């Protein structure tokens, strides 16, 4: 008389979900690692020094974990936040009472601070272990771009609470864009981009305007930063992360020789 477990495991539904036997012996462990969508992101086996904390510090892994934490908490915050002049500040304050734990907004903020710290430590570790040397130079470049995108995520997210700290920080930070060479309305070479005597780069059409969506930090800026923070930059980060991990794998695995 087969047990319930055996009946279930023999059913067609089970077999359509789990195509291979349980990973209890070496062959099946390999097979499952190779054919599962989530597990195949990891190699089947790694070298022992790959998990040596004194070699890797695990900062890359921690940064990725924090990115996932930020994504999850960020999506949850989006259920209760409205990016308008009327509601932005109030909604952030209300998150403390509206959500059951009351610290979801804080978790997101602390995670952001922690992610910036760990991404710098990861960069420092890669430098100290020489993991940027040929043929890994381009992966270092991808990593630097990821660092810049992390900092941009922090910058755009900082505005969303719409308090005094946020507005003035973004005002001062974006004022710098006015001085961009050629593309800033008050930068050097601004007149070079003029057609028929009409300036192409004015305060309403320069790099700063493209960032803010207006000539000063206002409702358009709030909306633009909201879209950048929640969708545009995370998508770019996800794509670059995939490339970053792929290259680590192809170059011999984490903390591995070539």
């Amino acid at each position: 008389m087969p047990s319930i477990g055996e009946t279930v495991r023999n059913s067609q539904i089970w077999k359509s979900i789990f195509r291979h036997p349980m990973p209890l012996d070496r062959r099946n462990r390999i097979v499952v690692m190779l054919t599962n969508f989530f597990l195949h992101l990891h190699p089947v086996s790694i070298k022992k020094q790959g998990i040596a904390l004194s070699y890797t510090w695990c900062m890359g892994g921690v940064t990725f974990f924090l990115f996932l934490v930020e994504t999850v908490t960020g999506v949850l915050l989006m259920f209760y936040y409205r990016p308008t002049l009327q509601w932005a500040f109030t909604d952030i304050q209300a998150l403390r009472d509206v959500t059951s734990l009351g610290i979801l907004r804080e978790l997101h903020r602390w995670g952001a601070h922690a992610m910036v710290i760990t991404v710098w430590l990861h960069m420092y570790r890669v430098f100290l272990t020489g993991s940027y040397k040929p043929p890994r130079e381009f992966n270092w470049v991808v990593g630097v771009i990821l660092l810049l995108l992390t900092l941009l995520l922090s910058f755009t997210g900082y505005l969303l609470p719409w308090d005094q700290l946020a507005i003035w920080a973004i005002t001062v930070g974006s004022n710098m864009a006015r001085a961009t060479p050629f593309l800033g309305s008050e930068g050097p070479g601004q007149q070079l981009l003029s057609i028929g005597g009409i300036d192409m780069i004015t305060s309403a059409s320069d790099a700063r305007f493209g960032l803010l969506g207006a000539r000063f930090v206002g409702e358009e800026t709030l909306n633009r930063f909201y879209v950048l923070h929640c969708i545009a930059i995370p998508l770019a980060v996800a794509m670059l992360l995939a490339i970053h991990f792929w290259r680590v794998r192809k170059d011999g695995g984490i903390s591995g020789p070539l």
Partner: protein
Amino acid sequence: MARAGKGGQQPPAEPAAEPPATQPSAAKPTAAKPEPAASQAEEVPAGPPKTASILAAARAEKKRGPLSKAEAGLLPGHDESRIEEAIPRPAKPVVPPMPAKPAYAQKKPEGAQPKVDEGRRGVLAMLSAMVGTSLGIGFGALAGTAGLWSLGLARYMFPNILTEPPSQFKVGQPSDFPPGMVDERFKAAFGVWIVNAEYNGQQMIYALKTVCTHLGCTPNWLESEQKFKCPCHGSGFYIDGINFEGPAPRPLERYAIRIADDGQLEIDKSRVFQEEKGEWTNPDSYVILRWGGAAGLRASQARADRARWFAASSLRRQVDRRWAEALR
């Protein structure tokens, strides 16, 4: 055990190596095991496995792969020397001979190359490949489309409509601003101070932009100390807007100001005058009241109009030329 030693696909009764069978019907594999093991014991010395053993293996519930050294080592009754044997290696496949090279892959004889200048031929060949072949056309179309899309994306980020408060607004009669006064009534809503003070020996009314020239914060007017002081980094400006302390690199900026038709002062925020560029001499950046009342208003309006006309006229150029000659 002998069967394990032969590297059987299903080592029998291995409680140490395997957790309790989660596969269904532990009875079945044990029944099937003796068959393949037995048939393997017959044939192991050489040759491909017999059909019977393959079928028996396929029928078995558990699909086992090769044993690792660790697993072989865990089998009861193992000894080190048999571990190598315990690892099954696939039989070397029979490789058919290599087919003969086709004609296009044959090495060309040395003297067969045409005598043409390699550089020019290369460029021509590349260009013809780019526009001649369908591959070139396809990728060219893709590159063109991607370029156009990028340009469209850049244009998309700059909206055609700006929602801003109107840049021109009236602030009241000039008599509402007595000499020496810095009016803060319009600071919060419009970002401007209306100041009636002396500059370059002249009493005038001008409109200062409330943006610190250091990093963009809003300074405060300190009446008792008669200076504008920025709370962010301590930049200080005199009543005329000239910077004198702190990190501000240049004076506060002025907005265009004029007397409108109804006699009120009208500010135009779309025009800005910077002292360091010498723009504060432009009569559009200030209003001078030499007399009070309606007569004074008309007089200032007339004076402003005349100054504006003169600045733009050819008469000014003649005067400048005459002065330049006289001073030479």
